[in-house]
């Protein structure tokens, strides 16, 4: 194998790691907000992603039927719609379910697990048990080949760009907006936040819904690289939780770092080992590190 080929593989493998990183980060972000900031274990996170995926499917079918000329562009609109739909469902879920359970984090786990079962069955009844394939814009598929033998996946770049955008957005919102201030105040001292006039209930609902909305965006973006079916979202849930926990739950920066670390470990070990063993190795590494450092990579040090 020639040096340039080696170099190409090296570049593509590096990109594979980055692309996995953005996938993990994008699915972890919504959870980082819900789990990290609010302490709610949302087992239905995957199903909120599925909402996003089915939104793409519905809009692609609509576009194909009514406005085929718009096919190359509907995707951007669809992502926004995915956010809105998942946000709305999240809003309702918080109102109906989550708000009663803030004092019992482990019970949110059971309740949202139930929610996820119900949502899966709704998807199944609405869209059928079989997987569907949304028609994606042609420009999103395929690869960009800047040099002979070097193929950079366009969908990978798209997901990466989207992740960058969403992450920046979350950081801005959390650290530069009134909402972010309210969320952080509520997280660090709920009673106090209440006392100084923050409507913590509203903040909670908003936070949960935004987390769900981001999950919807992630689900929408993943239609470019994965499947769309009633149980597609559940494929991501454990990975998402590990990313957030490993990063140190309350720290967004930790989520970013942990997504990066896990992605690199997995993608490099996958290259040198077989797929199953790479998965085992990655998980064992995470578990071991979490055992040694249970607070995750980034944690606040405060007096308790």
């Amino acid at each position: 194998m020639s040096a340039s080929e080696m170099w190409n593989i090296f570049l593509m493998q590096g990109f594979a790691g980055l692309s996995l990183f953005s996938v993990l980060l994008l699915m972890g972000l919504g959870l980082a907000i819900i789990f990290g900031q609010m302490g709610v274990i949302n087992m239905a996170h995957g199903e909120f992603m599925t909402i996003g995926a089915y939104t793409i499917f519905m809009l692609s079918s609509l576009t194909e039927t009514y406005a085929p000329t718009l096919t190359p562009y509907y995707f951007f609109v669809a992502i926004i719609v995915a956010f809105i739909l998942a946000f709305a469902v999240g809003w309702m879920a918080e109102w109906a379910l989550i708000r009663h359970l803030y004092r019992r984090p482990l019970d949110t786990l059971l309740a949202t697990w139930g929610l996820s079962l119900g949502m899966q069955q709704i998807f199944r009844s609405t869209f059928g048990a079989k997987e569907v394939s949304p028609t994606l814009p042609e420009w999103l598929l395929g690869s960009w080949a800047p040099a002979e033998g070097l193929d950079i996946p366009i969908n990978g770049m798209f997901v990466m760009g989207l992740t960058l955008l969403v992450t920046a957005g979350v950081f801005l919102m959390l650290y530069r907006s009134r909402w972010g201030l309210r969320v952080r105040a509520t997280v660090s001292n709920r009673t106090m936040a209440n006392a100084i006039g923050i409507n913590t209930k509203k903040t909670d609902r908003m936070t949960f819904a935004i987390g769900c909305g981001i999950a919807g965006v992630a689900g929408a973006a993943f239609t470019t690289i994965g499947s769309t079916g009633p149980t597609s979202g559940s494929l991501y849930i454990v990975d998402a939780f590990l990313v957030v926990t490993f990063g140190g739950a309350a720290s967004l920066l930790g989520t970013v770092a942990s997504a990066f670390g896990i992605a690199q470990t997995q993608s490099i070990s996958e290259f040198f080992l077989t797929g199953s063993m790479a998965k085992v190795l990655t998980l064992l590494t995470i578990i071991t590190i979490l055992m040694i450092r249970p607070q995750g990579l980034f944690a606040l040090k405060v007096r308790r």
Partner: protein
Amino acid sequence: MSNSDFVLAIEDLTVSFDGFKAIDALTLYVDKGELRVIIGPNGAGKTTLLDLICGKTKASGGSIKFKNNEMTKLAEHQIVRSGIGRKFQTPSIYENLSVFKNLEVSFPRGRGVFGALAFKCTDDVKARIEEVAAEIGLADQLNTEAGLLSHGQKQWLEIGMLLMQDPELLMLDEPIAGMSVRERELTAELLERICRNRSMIVIEHDMDFVKKIAHKVTVMHQGKILAEGPMDKVQNDPKVIDVYLGH
């Protein structure tokens, strides 16, 4: 000076949280049988100091010697077993259990897993529980669920739980906070009685109460000791006045 004369000898103790020095090179000695009161404005590091002594917080530097044994490297339960008892700021009792069970659980026997499995509430345990219950004024409440007690009674119960272990050093964090006047008086009497054969460290804000119980007073400010001595001397110390009234 030899440390061995003191029950507790703290030297050069330092702890920092992300660069903020909550306790800064603090040195403090407590005599046998002494009742020491620590006062100081909010954020002075009083509670942190207790946390450090009982092992809840790990020191960044310095030493804590209890009966001439180093405590900083020990785990919390080892520190307790060597004779240090600590009461928390808010009453920390087992609300779901009866008063009797609260005291029984605190009895220093069967502390290992299998010891606890084999533990029997024998007559000597019962006698001890009744004795302590009488001391803290809860003798007729033994079967009450602890969560139903009044705030003051909860504070006493926690003190009682510590007494079950018969510690040589007892540390109380604001024992009379939230108590009525009558309860305060009773608490003061209680502390005086239980102090007879052990040393105590008490954190308190109420100056009348402090005056009533303290043998010696230590004033803390910004993680350091500002003044130390009998109450009347400390009260007139200009530095102390400055800290309390200045800003």
